[in-house]
């Protein structure tokens, strides 16, 4: 698979929505350890609404679709996740303006702009013990693939998924600098960040669920 279009994106977003719903409890549990235990509920509420939107099948422009995802997150999700993921999608919307077909470079660009959105509003960076600690390494891996001339989307995501997992794992060694876990000081050590875990999980399960051809 070298190119995807809006229909593929819709499918992928539905898969993501399902993965998150299935893991809602686990994600809240992880958030409970060093946060307040609502992450799974919040994020799955948002992604359920995203799936509903897709099922309505009333949008055929990718940029507009991404904008609607952003608005959905900012309407349905509070907590830290609503603004972070919402702004992420809004940024992706800007990035995808006018585009209809997406190759690996576009996809990595979409992830990059998502990250930018998250950074803009959340002011976090690598090492702060947030989901960026899984997402940025995954993004870097894909960007690197693109620079190396890779074109196969599934293979690149597969590779990125390993980085996401390593990144999530590394959050255990971090003391939180952003988000609710900061209140714990050193006591956040030894525990994975719920958001980072979610990202690693998404990459891993998507890899499993996408048609693996190469």
């Amino acid at each position: 698979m070298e190119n995807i279009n809006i229909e593929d994106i819709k499918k992928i977003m539905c898969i993501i929505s399902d993965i998150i719903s299935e893991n809602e409890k686990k994600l809240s549990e992880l958030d409970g350890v060093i946060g307040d235990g609502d992450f799974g509920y919040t994020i799955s509420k948002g992604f359920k609404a995203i799936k509903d939107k897709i099922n309505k099948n009333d949008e055929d422009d990718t940029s507009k679709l991404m904008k609607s995802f952003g608005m959905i997150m900012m309407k349905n999700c509070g907590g830290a996740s609503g603004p972070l993921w919402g702004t992420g999608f809004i940024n992706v919307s800007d990035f995808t303006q006018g585009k209809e077909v997406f190759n690996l470079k576009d996809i990595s660009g979409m992830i990059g702009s998502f990250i930018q959105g998250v950074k803009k509003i959340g002011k976090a960076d690598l090492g702060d013990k947030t989901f960026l600690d899984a997402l940025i390494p995954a993004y870097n891996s894909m960007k690197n693939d693109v620079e190396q001339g890779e074109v196969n989307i599934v293979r690149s995501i597969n590779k990125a998924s390993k980085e996401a997992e390593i990144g999530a794992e590394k959050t255990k060694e971090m003391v939180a600098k952003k988000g609710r876990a900061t209140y714990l000081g050193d006591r956040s050590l030894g525990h994975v960040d719920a958001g980072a875990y979610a990202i690693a999980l998404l990459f891993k399960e998507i890899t499993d669920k996408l048609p693996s051809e190469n």
Partner: protein
Amino acid sequence: MKKIINKPENLVDEMCSGFFAAHSDSICLDYENRIILRKNKNKEKVSLISGGGSGHEPSHSGFVGYGMLDAAVCGDVFASPSIMQIYNSIKQVENKNGVLLIVKNYSGDVMNFDGGAELAREEGIDVETVYVDDDVAVEGSLYTVGRRGVAGTIFVHKIAGALAEKGADLIAIKKIAEKTVKNVKTIGFALSSCTNPNSGNPIFNLEENQMEFGVGIHGEPGITREKAECSEEMASRLMAKINENIRLESGDEVAVLVNGLGGTPLQELYVFNNDVTKMLNKLNVKICKNFVGDYMTSLDMFGLSLSILKLDEELKDLLFSDAYTPALKMISTINY
């Protein structure tokens, strides 16, 4: 699970409806956006909005009314309301005099309230925000997001609300709100965790006779886990921690808030209030008013927080001004 609820996903909606049913004489409900609004709007004054995750009842809905808030926005349990909810609440209360948002200092709350404020400002609405960070439990070189906002927020509602009712402008109200924030310090402890309604599980586990010192209002673990002590000893520990931050001196005037976290009987709050009162008397600090009860809870958590607000004449006057809300009523004008 020890809960009197129906489906957890309907909890907040049903709570809002139940609140409305009980207080429809003085409040309105925007069910869609989960906004509690004052019924008899005073259109000649700056509007005050607060809100946050649910699970802190009576905060903040209980403080909507004369002399306090114009609107309270309800998020999911322990999750800030969303950007659009905040935006909608601003739209509903704005009246050309400007809007003050009173926000507890959590990343989530700050991002959502700021986002909502930004959208409103783009439409030319005058919005200011005050961030409450009264919890002295959290500190140290590691903190990068600042302190948490907890029960001291009620004093901000009360004092800023009183000044708004007197017709002051947005900047003056923001100033008095910030002064209140500066003057109020809080710290709490818990003898049990709260129970998350979605999972049905406690957020943390305490052994019999253990307590979580410096616990947050979302079940965030506190500073340390220690042996539970008697009320007097706990009062002295909380006071010590507050005093590190506010330096009480002989002759100072204060207001005290002994706040139950949701599962604590009033009986014990009064016992604790007695210990705090004795302690402050010994320091020759004058208590102008003790508030005792559930003001900012954490679901069914068993524990309490102590807030001390240092008063000057200005704050005192506003603190004692009339308020008439579901959860706090102070009427000085009738002599009963």
